[in-house]
């Protein structure tokens, strides 16, 4: 028993190793390892079984067989649906990121100009919705945008149109929903960056005769670069995979990859194709994700 205890104690890692090891192991097991599994399943074949895919390797009679089925990937290339879904997602993500930037930058800028106490309250007001279910916030828009909803009622009341405009179940509604849902994620890193700026630089510029717009463009924007990158990536990356907003606000013509993946998985029960879709999505997103991580690291260095 005693020797067992000693051996056991030797196995118990030191405090330092534990502190690093627990979160590291958790993230490896529940975040990184699953991606390799997705990759593995994407090479298997759909089968009528539980779970609904075939094993990619077999071992029988001292023969190890590895069977990689690239059919899922060629399917993605051949079928128009998937290609246009990827393009649709990228388009929605790109334009809504730009819209968030155009709306969010002035907002973040205005917040930094407020008093310290007001800044806290304003940031709380900006961030509070992100704690509320995206589902509910999107649902709120469904009532507003529908044919007999408030927006159409308002438009007809002021006489802009005499018949309801179809907004719900179109791409317009998806854009509204995405900008609405992701605007706080743009403002947060922008504000965190802008609030650190040294105001004396702007004063110096204006003393030297620079116009407000000129100093904004030449001083504030370059200084805010990391904040802009972080904000844009925080919007762009999740929007590419967005499911709830296109599902609830979009129409049949709204092809987005998150929605297609969901349908392949839940409706068609085709796990291998869903996995292949996820792998390709990850490949598309890997550059933006690396950009985000780098801007985060830089921002952290700048703060320390």
């Amino acid at each position, binding site marked *: 028993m005693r020797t067992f205890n000693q051996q056991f104690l030797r196995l118990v890692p030191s405090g330092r190793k534990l502190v690093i090891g627990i979160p590291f192991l958790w993230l490896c097991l529940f975040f990184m390892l699953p991606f390799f599994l997705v990759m593995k399943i994407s090479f298997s074949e759909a089968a009528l079984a539980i779970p609904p895919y075939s094993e990619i390797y077999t071992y029988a009679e001292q023969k190890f067989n590895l069977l990689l089925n690239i059919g899922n990937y060629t399917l993605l290339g051949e079928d128009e649906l998937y290609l246009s879904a990827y393009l649709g997602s990228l388009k929605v993500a790109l334009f809504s990121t730009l819209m968030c930037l155009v709306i969010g930058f002035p907002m973040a800028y205005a917040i930094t100009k407020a008093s310290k106490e007001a800044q806290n309250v304003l940031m709380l007001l900006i961030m509070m919705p992100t704690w509320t279910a*995206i589902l*509910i916030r999107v*649902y709120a828009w469904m009532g507003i945008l529908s044919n007999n909803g*408030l927006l159409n009622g308002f438009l007809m009341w002021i006489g802009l149109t005499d018949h309801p405009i179809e907004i719900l179940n179109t791409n317009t509604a998806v854009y509204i929903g995405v900008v609405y849902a992701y605007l706080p994620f743009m403002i947060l890193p922008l504000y965190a960056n802008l609030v650190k700026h040294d105001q004396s630089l702007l004063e110096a510029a204006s003393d030297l005769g620079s116009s407000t717009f000129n100093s904004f463009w030449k001083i504030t924007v370059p200084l805010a670069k990391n904040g802009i990158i972080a904000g844009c990536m925080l919007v762009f990356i999740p929007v590419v*995979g967005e499911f709830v907003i296109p599902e609830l606000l979009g129409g049949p013509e709204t092809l987005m990859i998150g929605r297609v993946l969901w349908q392949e998985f839940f409706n068609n029960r085709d*796990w291998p194709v869903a996995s292949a879709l*996820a792998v390709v999505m990850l490949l598309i997103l890997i550059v933006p994700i690396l950009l985000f991580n780098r801007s985060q690291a830089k921002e952290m260095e700048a703060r320390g």
Partner: protein
Amino acid sequence: MKRFGFSKFMLVFGLSFIYLPMLILVIYSFNASKLVTVWGGWSFKWYAGLLDNSQLMGSVVRSLEIACYTAIAAVALGTLAAFVLTRVTRFKGRTLFGGLVTAPLVMPEVITGLSLLLLFVAMAQMIGWPMERGIVTIWIAHTTFCAAYVAVVVSARLRELDLSIEEAAMDLGAKPFKVFFLITIPMIAPSLAAGGMMSFALSLDDLVLASFVSGPGSTTLPMEVFSAVRLGVKPEINAVASLILLAVSIVTFMVWYFSRRAEASRKRAIQEAMDQTASESWQQPKKQMVGATA
């Protein structure tokens, strides 16, 4: 000065863009009319009707349970990760670790959900666990993604902390563990509370991850709401949504209020301590100076 006017205008516009839809939703949840777009007077009947919906109430209880477990685990895990990121400067795989901590923040939920489900299926085949997907698997999924949020919040706080207090404690012979629990934890407590409540709210809200990793019979509240919402706008859902909004607003306000109070009392304590040392050292310069530096 023209741009100031523009950015202020955008701020007001943006805030009303964010809050008007929610306000409208809450107002319409009191609508007596069954038609969601026609106003038929004030009524509480949709709220009263919720209590009779046992399926919905069951999912509410389940969601709250998962959110509690998630908040606790995510704070523990996220704080550890934040501590490693800010205090342990050099170890093998630090870059990978940093990436793993921040990546869940931006990773599309459909990818995380699908990959975790495949992991659980593979684990069930290999080691026989988890036999049934349900509360535990949802908890694991939520903890993984909420821990990233906690890590960001807590590491921001850890970074602005005055290291000298921890160093002083270590110089006086306190073990790292003791320093962490007696010095570091109390100083970062407000951000731990904020992270915990944030995780609670995020877990309560999540639809996509839960849909992937839950099994039959473990429907959470967002899944319940989603399947109803898919079919269109319903007054009952307005009532549920308003209640969720109310709960989240209360939690947010509490986080804000407590962190503000903690900050204020901390500042006051520092100010008082400084005033005291200043006045005392003024009276008895030699003796107190020694005491102050120790």
